[in-house]
């Protein structure tokens, strides 16, 4: 098993290489090239100034070099073994060095800082949603399968395809418009992750001199309700259907017949024998749930103005901010591949028939 994990981790590198190369050269061949919109931003300036700014950018970020060289330089940047770069931009000595993600052309800040600010937020959003998705899906699926044909089951089946078809953008807009709006019901905050006063709030709720203060924790939680709902409803519906189908399929199998013949009560047949086998189907799809949700969180972050990595990615692509785009791609790809590996490991642990020796 250990050897298998190592092997998978090593195989990640060529795939990541391919992903980053694909994205890089797509950016490079776009009109304006890398950093294009940045360079052209200076529309109102006189010709000379524009030239100056252009030259500055090109020198600083090496934008006038051949594309392949730029890509190679980026690879060099992120690898722990490579050429160190001197302050004037030339290559220094070869050896171990700290990997770096570079500097954002648009914001003139280290990309690492940008990522450190935004990645936790996106992860927070997604990692909170996943338990909801799975919890809801599993529970609803079990109830539906247990009382199949009943009203709960019929209602769930009908609404499941419908909820899966609701576009996230529409759900987000409607939720904001109806539940977070002065005009209708202002139950939830409209945007962001915190109220402006949140910085001053204590972490947990308690009474203060000015009255009840809900605390930073609950403030954040309250802000997260609508985005999490938006992110989860589609996947929950999908998982419900999957779980129900898996349970029903297993209920028809031979080993269930054996269990019944042994005298096992129907309840135990479901929760002991069938449940574990049905979960296997859900684990298989788990690897695609996380990347799908990260994609979905791009939309949710935009609608709800949450400063996460998705929003960072969208903004940086619009400016073709090379380092940021590459960093976001790298991390996004990494998450996708890691979740695939994690899924395979969990599956091997859950199903005794599977082994990677």
């Amino acid at each position, binding site marked *: 098993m250990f050897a298998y994990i190592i092997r998978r981790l090593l195989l990640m590198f*060529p*795939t990541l290489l*391919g*992903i980053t190369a*694909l*994205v890089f050269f*797509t*950016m490079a*061949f*776009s*009109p304006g090239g890398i950093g294009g919109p940045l360079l052209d931003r200076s529309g109102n300036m006189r010709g000379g100034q524009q030239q100056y700014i252009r030259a500055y950018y090109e020198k600083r970020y090496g934008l006038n070099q051949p594309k392949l060289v730029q890509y190679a330089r980026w690879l060099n940047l992120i690898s722990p073994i490579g050429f160190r770069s001197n302050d004037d931009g030339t290559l220094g000595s070869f050896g171990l060095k700290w990997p770096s993600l570079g500097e954002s052309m648009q914001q003139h800040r280290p990309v690492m800082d940008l990522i450190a600010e935004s990645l936790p937020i996106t992860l927070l959003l997604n990692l909170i949603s996943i338990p909801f998705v799975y919890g809801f899906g599993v529970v609803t699926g079990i109830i539906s399968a247990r009382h*199949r*044909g009943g009203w709960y*089951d*019929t209602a769930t*089946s*009908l609404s499941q*395809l*419908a909820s*899966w*078809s*609701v*576009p*996230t*953008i*529409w759900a987000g*807009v*409607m939720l*904001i*418009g*109806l539940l977070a*709006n*002065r*005009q*209708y019901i202002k139950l939830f905050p*409209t945007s962001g992750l915190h109220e402006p006063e949140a910085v001053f709030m204590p972490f947990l709720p308690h009474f203060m001199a000015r009255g009840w203060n809900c605390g930073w924790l609950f403030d954040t939680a309250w802000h997260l309700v609508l985005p999490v709902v938006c992110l989860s409803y589609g996947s929950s519906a999908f998982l419900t259907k999957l779980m129900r189908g898996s349970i*029903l399929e297993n*209920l*028809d199998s031979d080993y269930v017949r054996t269990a019944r013949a042994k005298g096992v009560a129907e309840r135990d047949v479901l929760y002991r024998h069938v449940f574990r086998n049905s979960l296997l189907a859900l684990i298989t799809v788990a690897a695609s749930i996380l*990347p799908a949700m*990260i*994609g979905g969180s*791009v*939309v949710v972050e*935009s609608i709800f103005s949450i400063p996460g990595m*998705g929003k960072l*990615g*969208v903004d940086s*692509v*619009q400016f*073709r901010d090379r380092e940021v*785009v590459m960093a*976001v*791609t790298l991390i*996004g*790809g990494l998450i*996708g*591949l890691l979740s*695939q590996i994690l899924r395979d490991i969990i599956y091997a642990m859950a199903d005794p028939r599977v082994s990677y020796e």
Partner: protein
Amino acid sequence: MTEIGTITPLGHGELLATESASSSRSYFRQIVDSVLRRVGAILGAIWIGTLVLLAVFSPLIANSHPCLMEKDGHWSSPMLAHLSAGDVILQTLFWSGAVLYFIPKPRRQTRLILWICVSVLAIGIFPFIINPPTIVEYQIYREDQQAGKIEKVFYAPIPFSPDDHLFDQMEMRLTAPSRIHWMGTTSDSADLLSNMIYATRIALSIGFISTGIALIIGVIIGGLMGYYVGWIDLLGMRLVEIFDAIPTLLLLLCFVAIFTPNLYIMMAIIGATSWVGYAYFIRAEFLSLRQRDFVQAARAAGLPVRSILFRHMLPNGLTPLIVSASFGVASAILVESTLSFLGIGLVNEASWGNLLNQAVGEGGTFYWWIALYPGLAIFLTVFAYNLIGEALRDALDPKLQENK
């Protein structure tokens, strides 16, 4: 050991299996389910059909140009005069298709070929001969009418074009639905209903054509991988992995950022990013078909690769792809709406996605009609395709088929 009896048409295991397959749902539930499936799919098909009609006839349904106008004693039809080449092409395709479908005489294939010829001719010729005037001022008709310069005038049912910004009226931005503007107006002071009708063209074409492109790419790559196993397969798998692991939206953003978002480019881009599922599927089908006897026989007889692929293997593997394609169309429509909503997709033409973007204004004002109608349209269309996909899947699933 000898077996009793001669023929055993129904194995005892099969008897129990048939019963247990249908016993997994109650009798009533089974009926309800199959009826609902069919009803759902039929409703979905009706909705899509309605959209197709709206798309084809949109300039005749919603147009600021009057259908017929008598001015200074002359009758004219500004509507017809301003039909673009695309409009005329669509009309030609539609009517020729309808006529050819219903006449019984020549064989199906001949009629199909005829239709394709007509389409190609239309697409090739009309853009050159049909050139409507490019500068249009819609408010002239209304002003003239008010001034009494026009004797008789007949408008289309919805007398607004999507790009008519109502310059003759004050402050018509973002007005709520009224008797005149049935779905209200947008932030550009254009009639929302008119925009939505024209946007059906975008939704439908993106759906079909991107999925078509994705299917072609996927089938080719997957087919090659499944047929020529070996290093082609290994290479292909790496390619599939890359496209699979990459955050799709990011890839799309990058691709879209290359070119100015134009309808045709969008179709190509969405097609180029969603082929992975089909490739995987076809590869799996081909890998299993390779072992089958009829393929081996064909190879032994010396048939060329292409022939084996297209005439023997492909027809078998394609049927389940139809189910996948239906869901793929739904997904393509969702993707386009999302990108347009984010401001990255289509910006020039009105699509349901970028209409939805106008729903929440600055300062948090919520314009409910702009949120409701475009969103509802996207939802119904996606839902319709999903329903059709589900119904197809149930129809093709061997497990659910009744014995005899």
